[in-house]
């Protein structure tokens, strides 16, 4: 026989009675209230799943509930009840130090695998199933911001533009050519740079064209941007950030509205990592692109060297940066020779 101290609430009023629950091996259950006795059977009782050390609740079939105090024999008593919850297995893990340690390590490893491989691989699969047309309005609205607010029309001569356009577009196969829209702009704010926007817009600033010593250097940069477009980085970028945002929100969700500030740093780190991976993929794409057309990849490396001198090198620790260290990019290009 197990005797447990409890509060009993009858379910029709908020009255509280201090009672003792007596569970007999025969399956009989007595509840003792001030010398009176209520008789039940174990079948009449449903115990709610345990969470931490909150008080156990025995719900009786007549609507009454007993809030059972912490007691050495409580677990044994719960074992006697026929209606068991599967969630008590989870309770077992939550309260076992070794199990928590295992779960902890598994969680860290899993998070790493999900961020490193899971999300990028899934996004890649999904991105190539979504038609390019989906990107159209996003690309156009971004393009509009570039043309109207950030940059002016290119100051390069028509002849120079046509010459480069011929070289660039001429190097593309049919599928690429149908996707890429090449645009030259004069952008004071950005210095020498090139951009790939959603829906295949590729922008070259006047400054980068002037900085190049050889047109093959520009072709290398162009190939890198073509890589962004053909590998669907815009779509994958949006997909990956959506999923990451969702996971982070679910994990930190009810900490309170201010805690979203605390979630900002991990979000930035993960998104920067995704961005670096896209850049590396585009560099590899560019290297393969050049090799296939018998153009040495060192042209792209030289362009990078020159740009570093102009922009003044990397200013951020690696884990926060949207691009891999330029030194590493150059090394990788050499290996890709």
């Amino acid at each position, binding site marked *: 026989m197990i005797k447990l101290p409890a509060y009993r609430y009858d379910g029709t009023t*908020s009255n509280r009675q201090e009672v003792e629950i007596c569970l007999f091996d025969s399956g009989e259950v007595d509840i003792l209230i001030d010398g009176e006795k209520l008789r039940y059977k174990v079948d009449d009782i449903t115990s709610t799943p345990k969470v931490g050390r909150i008080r156990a609740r025995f719900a009786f079939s007549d609507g009454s509930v007993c809030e059972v105090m912490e007691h050495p024999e409580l677990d044994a008593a719960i074992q006697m009840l026929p209606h068991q919850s599967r969630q008590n297995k989870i309770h077992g893990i939550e309260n076992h130090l070794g199990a928590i340690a295992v779960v902890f390590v598994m*969680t860290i490893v*899993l998070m790493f695998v999900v961020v490193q491989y899971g999300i990028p691989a899934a996004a890649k699969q999904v991105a190539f199933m979504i038609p390019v047309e989906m990107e159209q309005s996003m690309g156009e609205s*971004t393009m509009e911001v570039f043309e109207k607010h950030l940059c002016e029309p290119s100051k390069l001569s028509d002849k120079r533009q046509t010459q480069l356009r011929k070289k660039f577009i001429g190097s593309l196969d049919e599928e690429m050519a149908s996707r890429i829209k090449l645009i030259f702009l004069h952008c004071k704010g950005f210095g020498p740079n090139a951009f790939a926007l959603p829906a295949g817009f590729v922008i070259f600033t006047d400054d980068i064209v002037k900085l190049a010593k050889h047109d093959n250097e520009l072709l290398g940069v162009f190939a890198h941007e073509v890589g*962004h477009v053909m590998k669907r980085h815009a779509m994958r970028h949006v997909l990956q950030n959506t999923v990451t945002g969702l996971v982070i929100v679910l994990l930190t969700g009810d900490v309170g509205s201010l*805690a979203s*500030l605390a979630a900002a740093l991990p979000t930035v780190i993960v998104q920067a990592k995704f961005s670096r991976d896209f850049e590396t993929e585009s560099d590899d794409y560019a290297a393969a692109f050049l090799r296939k057309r018998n153009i040495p990849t060192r042209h792209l490396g030289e362009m990078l060297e020159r740009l570093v001198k102009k922009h003044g090198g990397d200013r*951020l620790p690696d884990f926060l940066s949207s691009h891999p260290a330029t030194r590493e990019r150059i090394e990788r290009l050499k290996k890709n020779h």
Partner: protein
Amino acid sequence: MNDTTNTNKLPFEFTGKAGEYFGIWIVNVLLTVVTLTLYTPWAKVRTRRYFYGNTLLDNSAFDYTAEPWALLKGYLVALGFFILYYMGTNFYPLLLPILMLVFLMAMPWLVVRSMMFNAFHSVYRNMRFSFKKNYGGAAAVFIGWPLLMPLTLGLIFPFIQFKQKKFFVENSSFGQSEFKFHATPGGFYKVYWLIMLFVVLGVIGMIAAIAIPAYHNYVEQARMGQMMYGRFINAADDPGIMMLSMAISQIATLLFYIGIFAYIQARVGNLVWNNVELASNRFESKLRARDLFWIFFSNIFMIVISFGLLIPWARVRMAKYRASKLSMLAVGDLNGFIKSEQDQVGATGDQVGEMFDMDIGL
């Protein structure tokens, strides 16, 4: 008002422990990730049951009785909405105002359903809370009154908040006993006048400093930072660099915001609780703005440097503080409440009601 000399002060108490909750939390995290977030309703129920079950009033515990399966459907709807919202606004910016409008129109229904669901599943002494199906009232305080915000230059905001709190309190019941609200709009204006002064001065200052064009420029740049994944090379406009310089230059602003937030939370929290009545029983809330400021600030700091591992600690700490500052001023004991006959809430509302909760979280 009652004779306060005859009342018992019954303290609220939170008995949860950070270490214990860590075990629950980390298992929830693992299962949420493994199940591609489908475990979320189970995680939510376990978390709520832990926090409710550890909250004691007069040594009786609260309980949360929702079933995870009932939440799953609502979670899936919310998930769909989230994906539609995020993807849609990325690819079709015009979709944003439409989605916002739909959400605004649905809001009274969502608020009421969510309140009904959560009240029904909140139990104390085997007696359920309940919330009235008052869609008209919800529409008035969440859509009607806020429409006057622009006309009154926001001066009506404290009044709207008064109306909203009154709506929440007065539509709630415990058993057959309805909650009553004794606060006045004046009380809310007392909380906000200082902040409104700051805001008004701030707005004037901003216009005077012609900060608006600069601000636009900054927003545009931030937007571009988001979209320029395809740049060829790192430059000073890198989102990371922008984040870093923003973080440094805005720490003071951040502290200021946390301060205002803590001030409002403490003052409004006290104002509301000190004016709630349940069958002649009153409440006493003694939150302090400076305590909350310190807790908010240190919680955020610890969560950041621990890469989130101290989230359980932060939550337990917050719950402990809030409970320690709240008491019930009871007339006699709490035995007299009687079960309400109409406490059956339809299952359809349960599930979608939860979606609103979810959307607040998102």
